[in-house]
């Protein structure tokens, strides 16, 4: 099937207002296959999307992963991705740049030998044979199932872990395990917080088995890790204090095989204190210079590592693990005024209570994290006064389901009007209990504050175009004042109007058209691109406000563009917002990436601005393929060209009017007729 791409030629100096119908020329990647590469190896990776033919560079975040462009044609880019042997396993942002925009996507670095899925493996009786351990890069299409046969010994426990949504794939995968008769031994669907399946199975009999990857909800790519591999389901505490040594307890399967364990990109190596099949305890000394924020756990056995779906935090506060929780407020123990409490709500309907002392007028921030860490707890925070009366409660933050990271972790700010003991409790919003219901409850005193986020961090605008830039301001710890927003670093000739975010949460419509109040205020900053030079520019958005006579200023957090990285939302790994200025085209000629010699080449012709009523002549720009010049009437919207010449060849078609070239197609590959 021919894949249509939108390709165009830039013609500057038309000087008219920008046509509202002009499509964005920004690059978009819809899929990467394979979606990852094993550390210490290289692989050819194909990116598929739109506006990719003139890709200039692809850069990976962090250390140890490089990409070079093998080819860029039409809607595809082929890369050679090289991952260093010590590259950190896990999700990695890449930044793809063309002449007309920037795209940030996500990729995965693996710690297992990788293979590619081979069709036809739809029938369980005709599976692809694999040797474990392995990481299979596969793709699920419509009515598609992938079957892989492997051998297992009686008594062996294996894991089958699929990464799909968590590395940005649209695939909602499920996994089944079949015996030699095709009978289903086990089936799992949404196991991790991302909806990816994870299965652990102990085989009763020696024999050949089949693992099947499928989907009930559409297709996409996946990475299946399988084998007798250690796997951590939870880590407590779920954080490390910078400058201190912390003892972490890892709970999971096959953990007696672990021979190396560390956090982050070699941030701290673990000194294993004890290990069994279900638990490892290890000490980590994190340098004081470590950056606060997210980090990953890495466990390895014989150099093999499975990427884990859960995260850790590095913080400046003391980390406490709750081993004997108080289930009643009257039994709660006193906690320091500033601390991070780590625990798991294992008992259904259980609440963990803690006592803290406040002076009159103290403002506390309570931040619950679970889903952001990859766990299943839907936290609620309740604060009780000294008599056990509820004085504050927080459940789900207001989420904008079109743009936000999906998580239900609440923040609660409380000003204590009276001095005395107070009690804070955390529980599951659905009163569940279980090993995976892990929480981090940060308790600290905090002055009123706010957070600014750029929600459109990668934007392409044409010269002369007016648009808006979406920014959000979230208020914390009782911030109740307006926040002034402005942008810096925009190219000369481009102006963004300063705006003020009032202290009122915005209301948005969700995908069902239902209005919901979100956490924060959305601000649309009008942007006008004047006589700016074309190119990409880094810019920053900042916010400033005054509360209690104190001025607070913050630089905006840079988030992924909505849906730009599949189901990945939140902060980009590299905090870099970019505006690309492009020249508006007069004519767009759109056609297939590839055409067979002898058949007609059909091109869609779109005109903009002053070229709208212009008669065009189409001619070949490049040499070996020819066609008789075609005149396209002023109102015609397509043209058909009869090609001749030698193949294979690359053809670029020009649109000419009054001797001026108003547009040209992207390169089109011409091949021999099959």
């Amino acid at each position, binding site marked *: 099937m021919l894949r249509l791409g939108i390709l165009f030629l830039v013609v500057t100096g038309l000087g008219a207002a920008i046509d509202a119908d002009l499509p964005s020329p920004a690059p978009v990647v819809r899929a990467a296959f394979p979606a990852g590469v094993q550390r210490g190896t290289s692989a050819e990776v194909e990116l598929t999307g739109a506006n990719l033919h003139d890709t200039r560079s692809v850069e990976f975040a962090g250390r140890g992963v490089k990409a070079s462009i093998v080819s860029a044609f039409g809607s595809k880019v082929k890369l050679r991705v090289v991952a260093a042997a010590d590259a950190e396993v896990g999700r990695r942002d890449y930044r793809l740049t063309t002449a007309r925009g920037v795209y940030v996507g996500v990729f995965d670095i693996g710690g297992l030998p990788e293979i590619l899925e081979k069709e036809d493996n*739809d*029938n*369980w009786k005709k599976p692809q044979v694999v040797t474990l351990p392995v990481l299979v890069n596969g793709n699920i299409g419509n*009515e598609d*199932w992938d079957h892989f046969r492997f051998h297992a010994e009686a008594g062996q426990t294996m894991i089958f872990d699929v990464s799909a*949504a968590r590395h940005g794939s649209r695939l*909602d995968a499920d996994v089944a395990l079949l015996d030699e008769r*095709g009978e*289903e031994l086990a*089936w799992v*669907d*949404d196991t991790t*917080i*991302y*909806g990816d399946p994870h299965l652990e199975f102990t085989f009763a009999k020696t024999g050949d088995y089949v693992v*099947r990857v*499928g989907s*009930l*909800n559409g297709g996409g790519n996946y990475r299946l890790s399988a084998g007798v591999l250690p796997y951590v389901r939870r880590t407590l505490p779920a954080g490390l204090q910078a400058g201190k040594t912390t003892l972490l307890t890892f709970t999971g399967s096959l953990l007696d095989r672990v021979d190396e364990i560390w956090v982050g990109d070699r941030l701290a190596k673990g000194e294993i204190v004890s290990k069994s099949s279900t638990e490892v305890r290890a000490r980590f000394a994190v340098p004081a210079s470590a950056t606060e924020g997210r980090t990953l756990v890495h466990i390895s056995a014989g150099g093999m590592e499975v990427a884990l779906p859960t995260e850790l935090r590095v913080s400046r506060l003391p980390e406490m693990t709750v081993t004997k929780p108080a289930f009643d407020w009257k039994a709660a123990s006193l906690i320091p005024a500033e601390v991070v409490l780590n625990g798991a709500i294992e008992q259904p*309907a259980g609440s963990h209570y803690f006592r803290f002392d406040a002076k009159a007028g103290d403002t506390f921030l309570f931040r619950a994290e679970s*889903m952001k860490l990859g766990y*299943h707890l*839907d936290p*609620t925070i309740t604060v009780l006064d000294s008599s056990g009366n509820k004085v504050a*409660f927080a*459940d*789900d933050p207001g*989420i904008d*389901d079109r743009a936000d990271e*999906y*998580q*239900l972790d609440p923040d609660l700010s409380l000003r204590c009007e009276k001095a005395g003991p107070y009690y804070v409790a955390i529980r599951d*919003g*659905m*009163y*569940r209990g279980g090993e995976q219901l892990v929480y981090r409850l940060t308790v600290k005193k905090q002055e009123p504050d706010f957070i600014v986020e750029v929600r459109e961090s990668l934007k392409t605008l044409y010269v002369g175009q007016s648009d808006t830039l979406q920014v959000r301001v979230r208020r914390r710890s009782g911030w109740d004042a307006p926040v002034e927003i402005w942008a810096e670093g925009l190219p000369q000739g481009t102006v963004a109007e300063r705006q003020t975010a009032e202290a009122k949460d915005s209301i948005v419509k*969700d*995908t069902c058209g239902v209005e919901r109040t979100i956490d924060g205020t959305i601000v649309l900053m009008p942007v006008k691109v004047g006589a700016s030079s074309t190119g990409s520019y880094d810019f920053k958005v900042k916010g400033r406000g005054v509360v209690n006579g104190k001025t607070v200023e913050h630089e905006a957090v840079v988030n992924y563009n909505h849906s730009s990285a599949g*189901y990945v939302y939140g902060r980009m790994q590299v905090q870099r917002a970019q505006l690309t200025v492009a020249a508006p085209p007069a004519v767009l000629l759109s056609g297939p990436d590839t055409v067979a010699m002898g058949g007609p080449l059909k091109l869609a012709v779109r005109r903009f601005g002053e070229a709208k009523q212009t008669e065009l002549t189409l001619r070949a720009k490049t040499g070996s393929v020819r066609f008789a010049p075609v005149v396209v009437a002023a109102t015609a919207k397509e043209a058909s060209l009869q090609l001749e010449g030698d193949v294979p060849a690359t053809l670029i078609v020009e649109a000419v009017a009054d001797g001026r070239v108003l547009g040209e197609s992207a390169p089109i590959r011409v091949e021999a007729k099959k």
Partner: protein
Amino acid sequence: MSILFLLALWASGAEARTVELKIYPPEVRFHAGSAGQKILVVATDEEGVSREVTAAATLSAGALAQVEGNRVVKGALAGTGKLRATFDGVSAEAPVEVLKPRANELSFINDIVPIFTRADCANSNCHGSVRGQKGFKLSLFGSDPDVDYDAITRKADGKRIDKANPANSLVLRKPAFQEPHGGGQRFKVGSDDYNLILDWLKRGAPYDAAGQARLRTLTVYPPDWRMIGAGTQVQLIAVGEYNDGSVRDLTNAVAFSSNIGAIASVKPGGLVTAEQAGETAIMARTLGRAAAVPLIVVKDRPMKNYPQVTENNFIDKHVFAKLRRTNVIPSELSTDEEFLRRVYMDTVGMAPTMEEARAFLGAKDAGKRAKLIDQLLERPERADIWSMRFSDMYRAGYNEAGQKGGGAYGRWFRDQVRKDVPYDVMVRNMLVSQGRHDFEGISNFYFVSREITPEESGVNVSQLLLGLQIECARCHNHPFEKWKQDDFYGFAAFFARVSRKDMYLNNHNGTYLKESGEVLHPKTNKPVTPKYLDGDFEPETPGTDVREKLAKWVTSPQNPYFAKATVNRIWKFFMGRGIVEQVDDFRVTNPPSNAALLDALAQEFAAGGYSLKRLERAILNSRTYQLSSVPNETNRADQVNYSHFLVRRLMAEQLVDTMAQVTGVPVKMATQPLGKRAMTVPVLNFGKPNYMMKVFGRNDLREVICERDTKPSVAQVMHLVSGDTIQQQITAKDGRLDAWLKDSRMTNRQIVENIYLSALTRMPGEDEMNAALAGVSGDAATRRQAFEDLLWMVFNSKEFLFHH
């Protein structure tokens, strides 16, 4: 027809001796100085036939009371005593209590409102309809006296009453037909009803004082009745008990009606006349209360020499007792072949394989049926068919839940059945469930509409778990039952905090308990306290989940509804018809076809720890379940008493999976990998339903009650004749047919036998064999074609398509 059977058909005609005498009501209570209490004396003879003998009996109430006209007991002074009845040499006694005199007050609620029900003014075709009649709207059957008082005295500017000249009131003149009246004359001028209303009007048409006694229970006697021969009669009496402890004889106050007038008719005052053989119930209604008397009309007296029918267990005892009472002889025991196919279909969802059939049919063990049942109850596939039944019932995969939520729910059911989790435990856990719908399957229990509301949850719980339809009471007091709006909203209040929330990724959501929530009564706009149906209030304690108490109440052995509603559904799964039908419509006015059987099943279920397996084992081992579907002369018309196995179409999944097993060619289910059995797919993708599944009644799981459509249709016929499923089944290569054809040791006769045995669980008859072999000849292609034709014919046969 056997000689025994012919002998049994010979009915007895001779008068039999009385062996028992009963007095109704069993305790005679009335107020001193009142009109007293009507009584009935019932004599039962040695053949078990009862007849009313009140007029012929000798009655004595001693010094305390008098028996007036041999029919009414009354007295002037309070006290206690005994009523003695003697007939045909047999005596009976009933305690008599004469209560203190009742205040001589005329009550609007207890005296005036019932008149409009009895006179048919307040029925659903007249002023009791939703819109009323000609601007005059009464509550249905006097269920809401407040509404009635307002309608009579205040609405239409109060023109319906004339306090200055009470006899000129429209509320009298219209029903007495002194004014043109669309409903004609409802009572005469000067009648008791007329005079009562006139008296009330003369007193100023007052409403009752606060605390006026309200009718609490309505009971009709005798509790059930069998009438022998058309034209025979029985008198019913109705007794009301009030919430202040007072009683009234309501025989002349209630409105009697017959469920099926062609079988028995009833006159005002409760005289019932048998019209023709059959079963019906006589209803009595007043003041929003109803009671029913199940009634059997048989043509002849009990058969002499009724055959001795073997009873395998308690089920047979109750089923066969009812059959004997109705002069119906059960069908013969099913053949081994019939039983084998039936029990496989019901326990593992498809026919037995050839090997399984040969093993069972060849066994000589007398106890082989029970052994097979034990084996089948341990098969893993049993959990699949139960999962499907529950998925239908609980609407797994309601549109919003989709395949993922519905699938998770179906898998939860399957897991529960595999672990033999008691049903009461399952239900308790469902009632208190919370969680993410596509991850924690049980949490889908409440997710049957996009937004979970307390009202909808109340309707679902009452209907699914208790068999009660209370939804009428959402808008108005229930017309036939005791459920008021207070009951409806009180029950809904148990779910006030149950809600839906968005979770994690787009379109993922879950059920959770809100921190707070309340249900407002539509009349008062005030919060309602949770209240058990027909029970007490249960105020919610802070920090607790009031649903936990509800769950205990629902599944308590003392709950009068839960066990009965559940066993009734389970019984229907296996027997094709509920003892109460429809299964979610338990009410006084819809009595069970065999109350003793229903009670016994419920007791067994509770005594067995609510084990599905134990109850299933009892049903499958009963002779009732194992009866042939072939009727005899006496039970041909029976559809309600289980005298023969009820023939019905198989479920879509049973058909599809059996076809695939016969041919060895898997049927592809949309969005499922090849080889997945239909019975293991709890929810089909709504966008891509498998056509055969759809056309054979697979639910789309959106209604409260998900009983399948079992009716035949032209679409089914057309699909079986030439649809893609059957074409693929018989023509696909590399299935069993090809294997048989390639096997040089396999004769044509053996292949015919294999097809019959695997599809129909029996060997072909000689005629069938000859006909099949006659078509098989020629080269390989022709030979295959002939067997394809045979497969097509078998799959299109009623014997294959129906459960029998």
